[in-house]
């Protein structure tokens, strides 16, 4: 920290300043600094205000209706007289798309971050970074428009085929890899080399048949699926994962870079390949930073409004069966807060108006807690890494 008193007064006799002038300077500096402090603390004041004003309008709802209905009932009929305010299906919908987008974005994002920090040469990385930045910069309403007008009809008309090809493209290479690795692992105990090779070939053949069967069977099952409506949880999850990816990639890349050269070099010196170094040494060391990245990415998906509003179908129900991603859902942010406010606006003071703030409060608390956790986690990683 720079010493604040350094500056004009070195204390040497060459700069003789009268006591009065010195006091004036002191006072000026104090007021200046406190003004700066006031501006800086403005952010904290805003955070407090947000909590206060959202809670102030949320609490009347809980006073009117209690907690039980809001969290346990799935009957959402706010416009009825008297209304029903069961938000369970809506909370479930929020959780469902958040989980779905995390399932897509987390593996992809971490793989991309590893690639950016350890694999790609510098000059290619320079081109990859703007791609991620542009992905982050596209406004959410543009993503929503894409989901509604372009992606939903595609999904509705060719849903099964799209799912089948996605499965083949993703699972194919992985199954090939699994066949090789499994064959290797099963035969690793065999001491005689010629015998081992023969045995491995046999095992590879056996696993290939299994893998081909799996590929074909799952592909066929997926191909037979008829998607009734393109605006569903799957569509939203995919688009939300696009939006969460940039956050996950950039934060986990920072975490990976923070691990430093020594660990990597130590691992290479022990004869590990690059993949082994990354998976067994670097990733564990960066794990807390990556956890923070995942939390932040999930928050981005949970708090997103426009995509969900436009492409989720907005039906307040728990899908049947509960894991059916091809059903329409509704989430806290969108349909509910954004969509109902227009009508509820007129009757400030009713349960209908306050329930939206209750949902806002729920989101706010959630984001606050996850932010807090991710921050702690990052601090801890920094401490551990600097301790070494």
């Amino acid at each position, binding site marked *: *920290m*720079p010493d*604040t008193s350094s*500056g004009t007064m070195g204390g040497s006799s060459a700069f003789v300043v009268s006591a009065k002038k010195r006091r004036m300077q002191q006072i000026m500096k104090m007021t*200046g600094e406190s003004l*700066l402090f006031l*501006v800086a603390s403005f*952010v904290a004041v*805003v*955070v407090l205000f*947000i909590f206060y*004003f*959202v809670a102030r*309008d949320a609490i009347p709802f809980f006073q009117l209706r209690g907690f039980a209905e809001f969290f346990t009932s799935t009957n959402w009929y706010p416009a009825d007289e008297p209304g029903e305010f069961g938000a369970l299906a809506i909370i479930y919908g929020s959780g469902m798309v958040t989980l779905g987008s995390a399932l897509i974005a987390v*593996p*992809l994002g971490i*793989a*991309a971050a*590893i*690639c*950016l920090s350890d694999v*790609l040469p510098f000059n290619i990385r320079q081109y990859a970074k*703007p*791609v*991620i930045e542009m992905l982050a*910069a*596209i*406004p*959410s*309403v*543009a*993503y929503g428009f894409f989901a509604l*007008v*372009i992606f939903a009809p595609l999904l509705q008309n060719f849903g099964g085929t799209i799912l089948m090809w996605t499965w083949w493209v993703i699972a194919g290479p992985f199954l090939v*890899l699994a066949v090789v*690795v499994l064959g*290797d*692992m099963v035969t*690793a105990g065999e001491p005689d080399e010629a015998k081992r090779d023969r045995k491995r070939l046999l095992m590879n053949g056996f696993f290939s048949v299994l893998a081909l069967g799996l590929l074909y069977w799952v592909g066929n099952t997926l191909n037979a699926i008829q998607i009734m409506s393109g605006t569903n949880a799957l569509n939203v999850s995919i688009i939300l994962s*696009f939006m969460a*990816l940039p956050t996950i990639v950039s934060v986990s890349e920072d975490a990976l870079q923070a691990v430093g050269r020594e660990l990597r070099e130590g691992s290479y010196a022990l004869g590990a*390949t690059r*993949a*082994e170094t*990354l998976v067994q040494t670097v990733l564990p060391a960066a794990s807390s930073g990556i956890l923070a990245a995942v939390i*932040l990415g999930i*928050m981005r998906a949970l*708090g997103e*409004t*426009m995509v969900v509003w*436009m492409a989720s179908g907005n039906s307040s129900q728990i899908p049947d069966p509960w894991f059916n991603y091809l059903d329409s859902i509704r989430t806290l942010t969108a349909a509910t*807060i*954004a969509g109902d*406010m227009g009508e509820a606006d007129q009757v400030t003071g009713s349960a209908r108006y306050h329930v939206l703030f209750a949902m*806002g409060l729920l*989101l*706010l608390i959630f*984001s606050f807690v*996850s932010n*807090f956790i991710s921050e702690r986690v990052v601090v801890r990683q920094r401490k551990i890494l600097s301790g070494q």
Partner: protein
Amino acid sequence: MNIGTRKLLDRSFTAVGFTSIMLMALALLAVLVPIITGGIKALYFQGTVEHRTLLFNEFQRGDEAKLAVDAERSEAARKPVYEYLAAFDTELESLPFERKRALESEYHHVRDTLHELLGPLPGDTPPLLLRFQYGVTRWEKAEEELHNLLYMTKWDYSDPTKMATQYFAPRVDEFTGTSLEGLFGYVEEHLEEMLLPQPEFYWGFITDRSLDAHIFGGVWAEIQGTFYLAIGAMLFAFPLGVIAAIYFTEYAKDNYLTSMLRSANSTLAGVPSIVFGLFGLAFFINTMKVSESKSVLAGSLTLAIMILPTIIRAAEEAILSVPKTYREASLGLGATKWRTIMTVILPAALPGIITGGIISLGRAAGETAPIIFTAAVSVGATIGIADVFTEPTPALSWNIYNLASEHEAANEIRHVQYGMVMALISIVLLLNISAILLRARISQKLKG
């Protein structure tokens, strides 16, 4: 494990990394390409004579003499159509009741479609809404309408085990033997002469006001509203953010209070955008009463709060990246701390600070959720700069949502929606690209 397998695993690990980056690039392309190709159609398309008439009547734009010639030509080509209709009108009266009733609803459909194609038919009462006063303005729509005129959509229920399949039956079959029979063939052959399509570059899409709730006209009101909101937000957030960053980097002591302020900053960055909207409604409008109801001012304030953390972080980073030697040299020459900040550190950090500002500007322009309750209206005219304190405004982001999901004719005006999305994305991406270029120049300069 076998060394070959280990190598294979290593390679495939690399491949997974590459693929994921490629996938992200592909995702970007998959979103951008259809939006841009669709958006270009809003600006460049085959415009019919109806479009040229509309532009002349509403905006006094275009060559009057040439338009008169065109109108005359198309009127001549349309005359037989009107004659067919008139002849059939009289024939319909003379038909036996059963036959008349069977034909009447189909005939209504024909008249409606012709109205869509050519504008009001002779004998119709002049329509009040602008959208009914003109025929089709875009040639690709004319082709769709022609198909509607020539064919009926029917459903085939013959196989009860399957979903019904759709097929088209020629409409002319219904009218065989009547005086309307010739109409269908005539329209099919002479549609081009009736509408006189020609390629048109409609730059007015950017600069015109919208006509009849975006059925015709441009999106200037939305673009202007977006600029007001984004720039308004910057006016509040930029000075505050830079000052706060100066405090955090230069003055803040490493204590509990500072770390609390910092985590307040990251909490604010993580608040979902819709909650900012709720806060803006509850605080700026209902409590502070900055305006009667929604206004640009309330929206700008809400957006300002939203982008503040980003600006603070970017400014902090820019200030921290100024080499230490600059500061030491200045202090060593006897400058005060404040003077050092103002004359040495800030100028050196300025490009970095501006980069952060530009990115935040793009974010403020693109965000929808915070302005839904505080500033945006779906239909509205352009507002003057003096009205920003009291009036709400249409804005690109909100109107994209509104036109795509709530507009009564959402399917008919896809080209307007695409055009709006392209306009918004162009604004945001241009801002971001300039920020990226600016940053590349800074890093080059710092390298020396």
